[in-house]
């Protein structure tokens, strides 16, 4: 201590000057690096605004021509240049709903298994295996779905569904027509497998973060494992679980390649989920490079804009909910 004090009093003017210049240099590099990282952070914002702006500009010819009816019109005719987005929007929503109906309960049950039932030694391997499902590229799901899963459904599942529901009033129209193999049900099932790991991963994280005291108290008054999960863990983490499901939904809505392979790409709305249909992303992937004429291209970009808008809203809600649960669980 005293040495430092001594040194500072004996500094000559030369030394002081060189010290000041070193300090200035350090300060400059620091400012430069601060500015650089800040610019990069702002670049992320610019990226998103750029995406929205370019889509809006690209879509404007179509939106100017068709107006709001673009969203509510089912006709998609490149020859007469009449375009409406209702069929792809319908297909996107239906396939995603099918996916969520299956993936949410299964994903939650897997998370329940991993946090409450699984032996400790197996937890990590099983969790990683489930997460690997998310790592498999979507084109692999597509080729697999087209060559393996669709023929299987056509042969063994769809005839059974058609016959089984023939006499049931409302459901019969849902499972109507010849078994094509490909179609909206097939796409929905494959989407379910694809979003499953996202739902499981997030649910597992929030289940793990439940304070042990709460669980122990519930076990202490004689609850069964299921009751602890159903009445303690699930209510406590509800916001996070919904956030995780919304994140999965966001994925399902925007998924392209896997769906493109198995949806059948038919621009029509059928009541039966066994029929071919199309989704927004599949329409763009299938038709964009072959689209002739500005209006056709622009209509496809407009589809992209609608898709981006829907996923933006869904993902925003997901993030908001996950932020809330993070604050709560600390």
């Amino acid at each position, binding site marked *: 201590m005293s040495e430092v004090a001594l040194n500072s009093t004996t500094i000559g003017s030369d030394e002081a000057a060189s010290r000041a210049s070193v300090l200035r240099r350090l300060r400059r590099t620091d400012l430069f690096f601060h500015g650089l990282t*800040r*610019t*990069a952070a702002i670049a*992320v914002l610019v990226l998103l605004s750029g995406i929205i702006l370019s889509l809006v500009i690209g879509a404007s010819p179509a939106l100017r021509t068709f107006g709001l009816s673009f969203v509510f019109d089912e006709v998609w005719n490149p020859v007469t240049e009449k375009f409406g987005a209702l069929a792809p929007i319908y297909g996107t929503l239906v396939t995603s709903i099918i996916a969520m109906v299956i993936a949410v309960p299964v994903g939650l049950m897997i998370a329940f298994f991993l946090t409450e039932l699984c032996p400790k030694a197996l937890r990590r391997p099983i969790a990683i295996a489930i997460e690997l499902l998310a790592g498999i590229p979507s084109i692999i799901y597509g080729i697999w779905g087209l060559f393996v899963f669709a023929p299987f459904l056509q042969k063994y599942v769809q005839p059974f569904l058609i016959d089984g529901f023939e006499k049931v009033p409302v459901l019969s129209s849902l499972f109507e027509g010849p078994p094509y193999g490909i179609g909206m049900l097939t796409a929905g099932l494959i989407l379910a497998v694809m979003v499953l790991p996202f739902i499981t991963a997030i649910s597992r994280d929030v289940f793990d973060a439940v304070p042990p005291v709460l669980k122990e108290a519930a076990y202490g008054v004689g609850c069964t494992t299921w009751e602890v999960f*159903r009445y303690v863990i699930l209510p406590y983490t509800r916001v996070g679980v919904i956030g995780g499901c919304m994140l999965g939904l966001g994925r399902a809505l*925007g998924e392209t390649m896997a769906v493109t392979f198995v949806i059948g790409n038919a621009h029509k709305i059928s009541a039966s989920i066994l029929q071919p249909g199309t989704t927004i992303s599949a329409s763009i992937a299938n038709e964009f490079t072959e689209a002739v004429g500005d209006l056709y291209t622009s209509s496809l970009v407009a589809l992209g804009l609608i*898709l981006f808008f829907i996923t933006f809203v869904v993902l925003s809600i997901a*993030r908001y909910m996950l932020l809330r649960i993070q604050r709560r669980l600390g």
Partner: protein
Amino acid sequence: MTDTATDRARVAASPRYASRRRNNFIAKTLAYAATAFGLGWLVLILGVLVYEGVGGLSLAVFTENTPPPGAAGGLLNAIMGSLVMTVLAVLLGTPIGILAGTYLAEYGRHDRLSTVVRFINDILLSAPSIVIGLFVYEILVAPMGHFSGYAGAVALAVIVIPVVVRTTEDMLTLVPDTLREAAASIGLPRAHMILRIAYRAARAGIVTGVLLAIARISGETAPLLFTALNNQFFSLNMNAPMPSLPVVIFQFALSPYEEWQKLAWTGALLITVTVLTLSIVARSLTGRKQS
């Protein structure tokens, strides 16, 4: 005073207790079944992939270009195209991603800009990749007038950035603040503290992020469809349409030719092995760090 043993017996015999036990049993069985269902898909997909893909694996796959319909050939041009575009995309996206992640974790941990950037980045992370393809088409392909390898690489870079931002921020946040305070106390400016200390401490994590990003883009098809398009021939000209493994798989799988479909399966096996290896290596890097 009641006898506890008879009390217990009475409870065990009550219908309410029986139904609670039954529900518990059913729920547990369902949980086991759900897990088996999830793992079953993984086994099924990988099994079919190996079964269909291994037969086509030969040296020719790596030394010959994609064939015309009806002829034998390989995937050399597609593999090279994928490699070149992936490398360029990582070179473009990683610096921006690391710097932005650094800002979020070091300079602006709690300021308003960071809150917004974090939110937007998370949305970009899950944004549909086909929309990113449309974006790059609008800003690069349309003005240039032709498809190109550059456009493909830029589209992939847009996917790399949010992944790297996220992992860099997470990993820098894990670096203990005492290290930062120690650096500050010996008079080290912030930039030097970050470059010399924080980056070094978080190195494994940052590398993990880059590996995960590579894994993510090496299977991406949708953003390449109308940016890099495809090319039947070997080409390293980034200013021209460029083939890539996923796009070739897409085209070949949907073709009616048996040779093409076979190559598609082989390509699918190659991609999956690459992606899964990358993500397992990435995991083991951070896994070691945490323990």
